[in-house]
């Protein structure tokens, strides 16, 4: 199990990456437990993306019950949202993709 310091270090490393706008770690209840965004944005991202991730996961399982979602990338005009689900948690990273 990762130590809290390791987690913190990893998140800081991600946040320092060029183009990264912010990160949100979401727990199983859909609550952001750590974020580099302001609170209300974090709550909004957490809720919406937990919903979408659940839908993506059930789509994958409906297509093949032996399969499972490992990653989700949502690209939009303004930025890209990456969602990494793990053990009912979500790691959300929002970045400006490099041209």
């Amino acid at each position, binding site marked *: 199990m990762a130590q809290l310091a390791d987690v913190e270090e990893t998140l800081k490393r991600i946040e320092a990456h060029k183009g990264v706008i912010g990160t949100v770690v979401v727990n199983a209840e859909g609550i952001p437990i750590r974020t580099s965004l302001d609170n209300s944005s974090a709550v909004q991202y957490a809720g919406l993306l937990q919903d979408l991730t659940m839908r*993506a996961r059930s*789509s*994958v399982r*409906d*297509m093949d019950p032996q*399969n499972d*979602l490992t990653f989700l*990338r949502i*690209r939009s005009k*303004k930025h890209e949202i990456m969602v990494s689900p793990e053990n009912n948690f979500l790691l959300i990273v929002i970045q400006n993709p490099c041209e």
Partner: protein
Amino acid sequence: MHHSSCAEVEETLKRIQSQKGVQGIIIVNSEGIPIKSTLDNSSTVQYSALLHQLLMKARSTVRDIDPQNDLTFLRVRSKKNEIMIAPGHSASLLTNTLLLFTLAEKLKNIS
């Protein structure tokens, strides 16, 4: 922006389909109805319905966060494969959505 001819569309699909790792391609219209597919019928019907719904949800997620923003691409990666979804745009001639199914290894040639 010109309308691709039937032959050009066919040729593009063949080119994509021949890329290493590509498992299948489905083109769905704005209602989520598959209009072209390289997969078998029942998979096509099932996947189109599921992924069209997912696309709609992803699009509204993006707009809920920022009404001025819009979804341009969606990649669903799983243990076995990766699904790339290029949504159509109702405002342009490119109204159809492309669903691309590939193996979960990196593809170098798909842009």
